[in-house]
Every structure is written in C-alpha cells, then in structure tokens.
C-alpha cells in the first residue's frame, strides 16, 4: 500500500497497462515529452518510448478517429483530450464510429478505447477549461461513462476502462487530481464498471453524487450529523453509464428521501436520469420530492464568479434539510 494522489494513481494504472499489454497505446497532446499538462503521463514516454506514448498534433478529431482505426487494427488506445472542453471536436468520431463499430459490423470490429479528459471547475482556469458536460456522452448509445472520485477508485476504474471491450469516456475531476491522497494497493486493482459505492450508510436521506462533487457532499456530512442530527446515506456513482439502478433504488427505498448533486447543468443532466430511475422503481417509497443541487443552466462564469455557481456544502445542506423537513 502506498499513499498517493489521483494524479499518481491514474499514472500508475496506465503504467501497469502499458507494461502488461503491448497493444495499449497513449495518444494525446503534450502527453509525451511534456508528460501531460497535468503531469498525468509522467515518466511514461521515458519508460515505453514514442511508439507507445504518442505526442499528437493539435487535432482532437484526429486523436479520436485514429484511435478508432487503431482499435480496428487490434490496439487498445488511451486517447487524451487535454481538457473536456476540447473534446467536442472528437464528438463526431466518437458518436458516429467509436460507439457504433461493434453494432455496425455485428461484432467483427470493436472499439476497446478509453477517452480520458479532465473536467470540472474550481481551478481558476481560463474560458472553456472548467465545464462539466458528461451528460452529452451519457446520451450516446454504445458508450460507457466512468467518473472516479478518489485515487483508489481512479486507478481501479481506469484499469477496468482500458481493458473494457467497449469505448469508455473517462472523466477525470481535475480539481481532485492533487487535492488529497489515499492508500492504493501495490498490486493492480480493478473494479466492475457500473457499480456504485455506498460511501456512508445511513437511514434518513440518500445523497447521490459522483466525481468532483463528491467533495462538497462529503464536506457537508459532519454538519448534517452534528448540527442537524441527520443520518445521511451517501452514494458515489462512479459510472453514469451503466448507472447502478439497483444500489440507488435500494437506498431510496430505505430512506424515502433523496438529493442528487452534480456540477453539470441541470437540464437533461445526469440527475434527471437518476431521478427517473427512482421514480420508475421506488416512487411509492418516496416521502418527499427529490431535490437537485446542480450547476445552473447557464454558461459557467469565468473563475472570478465561478464559486457561487458551483455546488458547495451549503447548497447540499439546504437541499437535504428541505427534503427531510418536507
């Protein structure tokens, strides 16, 4: 066991995969010589060489499209979009090809690729560097959408995504890259994609979140417990597609109350699907309307005004209290 940040843990997962499987490749802007603008690919060019860790021209559509072709040719590319805000260029190749090749060719050609991208706010970045647009990908049939929240699950989920037989959009909460450390096992560890994690068992209310917004949720716990004598159950989804309907439903059946938290805008956001699943499966157990703490349906302001526009513990506590006092 070693203590490490999410940045190191992601690096470890890629190093292990590159070492184990000669078909694993990394493609992205500044991932080699520069070791990634967030240093996530540190040391990998040195260790595995420029044929496996590839510094790519500034062309996201090409990174995605070439990755599809590499898959067809028998490789497992890990494609990096430098920021999720520039992943839109890759949309066309991912929607029209990566997500469909298995179906189009009835399984003859598949796309076991991962598209990694840092997402989310809170780092005083310039325009287009802070959005949370994971819902866009979750809408596309044929893609998995995985979002870790801490070092240990990041390492295990990235490994699972690299070796998953289908394309995985891997959203990395960049504000958490170096925010805290965790024990990570020495041996390669994997996790089943599509299983949520009950971070804290409780009986009064279910709080559901993932990725970057797990932090404001967890920061709200002490106050909910000490100040308001509440016993919240907290679920970290870890994956939006597949979504762990079972864990969510079981929890809401137990607590009867629910708050969903994410940084992404509200309209057609992940919370909308989560709540739909609850309504379909546990409507008669609900004792209060479900609340959403999300980004607003606005362009996320530049960093000087960003803070009040993001989920924070105050917003989580307000929503939880409304739900329990209903």
């Amino acid at each position, binding site marked *: 066991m070693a203590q490490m940040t999410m940045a190191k843990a992601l690096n470890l997962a890629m190093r292990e995969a590159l070492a184990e499987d000669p078909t694993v490749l990394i493609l992205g802007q500044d991932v080699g010589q520069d070791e990634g603008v967030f240093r996530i690919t540190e040391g990998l060019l040195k260790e595995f060489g420029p044929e496996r860790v590839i510094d790519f*021209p500034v062309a996201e559509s090409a990174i995605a499209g070439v990755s599809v072709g590499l898959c067809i040719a028998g490789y497992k590319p890990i494609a990096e979009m430098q920021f999720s805000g520039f992943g839109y260029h890759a949309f066309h190749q991912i929607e029209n090809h990566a997500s469909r090749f298995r179906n189009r060719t009835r399984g003859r050609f598949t796309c076991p690729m991962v598209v990694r991208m840092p997402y989310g706010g809170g780092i005083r970045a310039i325009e287009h560097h802070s959005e949370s647009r994971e819902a866009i990908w979750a809408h596309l049939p044929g893609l998995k959408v995985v979002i870790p929240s801490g070092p240990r699950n990041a390492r295990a989920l990235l490994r699972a995504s690299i070796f998953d037989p289908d394309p995985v959009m891997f959203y990395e909460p960049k504000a958490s890259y170096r925010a805290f450390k965790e024990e990570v096992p020495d041996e390669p560890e994997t996790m089943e994609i599509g299983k949520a994690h009950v971070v804290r068992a409780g009986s009064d209310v279910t709080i559901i979140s993932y990725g970057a917004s797990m932090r404001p949720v967890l920061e709200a716990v002490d106050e909910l417990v000490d100040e308001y004598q509440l016993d919240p159950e907290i679920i970290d989804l870890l994956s939006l597609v597949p979504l762990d309907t079972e864990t969510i439903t079981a929890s809401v059946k137990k607590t009867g109350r629910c708050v969903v938290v994410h940084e992404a805008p509200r*309209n057609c956001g992940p919370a909308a699907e989560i709540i739909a699943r609850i309504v379909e499966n546990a409507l008669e157990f609900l004792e209060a309307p479900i609340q959403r703490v999300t980004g607003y349906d606005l362009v996320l302001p530049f960093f000087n*005004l960003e803070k009040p526009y993001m989920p924070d513990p105050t917003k989580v506590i307000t929503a939880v209290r409304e739900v329990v006092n209903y």
Partner: protein
Amino acid sequence: MPRKKIELENHVESLSILDADGNADESLVPKLEPAEMRKLLRGMLLARRYDERMLKLQRQGRIGTYGPALGQEAASLGPAYVLSKNDWMIPSFREPAGMLYRGWPMDKLILWWGGNETGSSVPEGIRDTPICVPVASQCLYGAGVAWGCKLRGDGTVALCFVGDGGTSEGDFHEAMNVAGAFNLPLVCVIQNNQWAISLPRKKQTASSTLAQKALAYGFNGIQVDGNDIFAVLTAAGEAVDRARRGGGPTLIEAVTYRLGVHTTADDPKKYRTEDEVEAWKCRDPLARYYKYLKKHGILDDKARDMMEEEIAEEITAAVEKAERYEPDVLEPWRYCFATMPNFLEGQLEEFQAYLESVSGGEGRSNHKRSELSENVH
C-alpha cells in the same frame, strides 16, 4: 495522355526585409512617415511591457494563468496595422499587440485574464472578436465574417490569426477551404512561433512550410520573417488590398518564436533548450527595429525613454482600472438568452436565496428579477 508536371496558378513566396541586426533592404522598406515608424515601435513596446506586467501580476496572484506573447509583437501588430477601422480582426489568444493597437482597452484584457467575462465584451465601434481559446475555431467564424464583408460589398475584409499548432485542426482546414471556394476577403495569419505547447513545429506537420498549405486551397501563400515588422506589414498590406479588390484570401505564415512560457502553468524546460531560446532572442523583433530607427535618426534613446515612461504610466493606469472593477454576481443570468425563460427564473430565485444564506443578506444584489430578464444587448 502523357504524364507531366502540373503548373499551379498560385504561388508561395518568402519575404524578409529587415535582418536581425537592423539592416534593411531599402528597396523593400514600406513607405512610412517617421511618425508612423515610431507608432509601430510604440505598439510593439506597449505589448512587450504589457506582457511583462501581466507575468508579474500573475506571480502576485492578481490575475489567473497568463499566456504571454513575448517575441511575437511584430507578427501580431503588423497585420492589425494595415487594417482600416471598418475591417474585422479575429484574434486567437496571442495577439495583445494587435488587439491593443486596434483599440481594445488594456483593462479589458487584464480583466479577461483575471477571470471576468467583461474582458470579452469589446466596446462599440471596434470590429474585433474577443480572445478565442479553442484552438483554430476562430478561423471558421473568421471565414463567416469575411463572407459577410463580401455580401455587404462595402470593401471591408477580415483578418484572422491562428498558431502553427492550430493548422492541424480540422477547423483551420475547413475555414481555408471555404475561403478559397467562395473567394472570401479573408487574410489568415499563422503565427508560427515554433511550438504548440511542447510540440515542435516539425512534429506538427510534414509540410516544409505552413504557407504552402495555401496552394491546396487555391490561393497564394507567403512565408515572412515574423520578427521583421517591415516584412509583416508588406505581406499583410498586399493581402488586405487583394482581398479588398475581390482577389480572395491569402495565407501568411509569420515565422516567429514564443520567447516565453506557453502559459504560466507551463515549464518549457521540459521540452526545449535554453540555447534555442537564446538564439531566438538575438532575432528579437523589437531590438532589430529599434536599431533601424536609431540608425536612420527616426528615434533616439531619449525619445525612447520618454516612450517607455508613457507606456509604464498607461499600463499602471490600466491595471488600476481593472482592479477597481467589481463583477456583478448576477450578470451571468442576464446574458444566457435575450429573454430569460421561465425555468431559469426558478433557478435564479434559488441562486438568490443561496447568496442570501451565505452572506446574511448582503450578497443580494439590488437587481429585480424583471430587470435581469430584460437583456440589454
């Protein structure tokens, strides 16, 4: 039936007028009044000192991440200089010299890097789009603006900037193709500063020049010494004239160098040598131009010192103005749509209640909801 070489209608040239030591080919030096020559120096010097001050402000935490354009002053000022006020300029993110020359208030640029949308809100009367972050995306709306110029038929043109890295994006290719196919009055200046973050120009494309890409789109390309203000002015001036006369687009590759960091979040030591940077410092656009002006008695040290003082004051005033700015926390609601839809009104109420809860009421702006619903632009 035979196999033969295809002769292309278009050509690619290269142009350099003022060398690194300040010697010029006088037959090629553009005809400029001494006052204009001094104005050009001032434009470059202003951008240089602005960049230096911004780097300082960044270190002091007074702005966010900053991307300086040190060494690229001639490449961005020259093309802006040949435009008329009614022409359009479509910058990328490394054109402070051009933007300041075109009349962008410096405090707006400081505010942009300080994390405020107002830095993108260009004052009325300036036909420039704001700083554009998604690499090369500006080339496409640049082509659209040029199309508008053509449709209106008023002889205006559009100038867009892009980096060497940007030429790898599909958006760049599509914009150039459209510009050629519709014979648009678009001048595209590639600031080839040799690096796209850590990727050197040679690894960006197998093309031996970026200017030659013009041939594939059916128009002329020219590679100029981008640290030579005379060469940049000449090439841009000819391109703008041609576009104005209906002669279509031009691609200008300005060969320059990013003397500084990519942004303050970047460490160039990881990918390039000090020797390389030092070699390019000897080709500084400002130093060589100043040598030329001095040699020709157009400017002396005393006049330059005065210019420096004036510039320092101008920058200090802009910093002070920028730092007096107080953002309105409710402003984002006003600009998402022309009229705020109902579902957003509900979210706004929620947001205002939140502000009140965290500030004990002080955070509540005195805007009424109805005021916010009425968009001013």
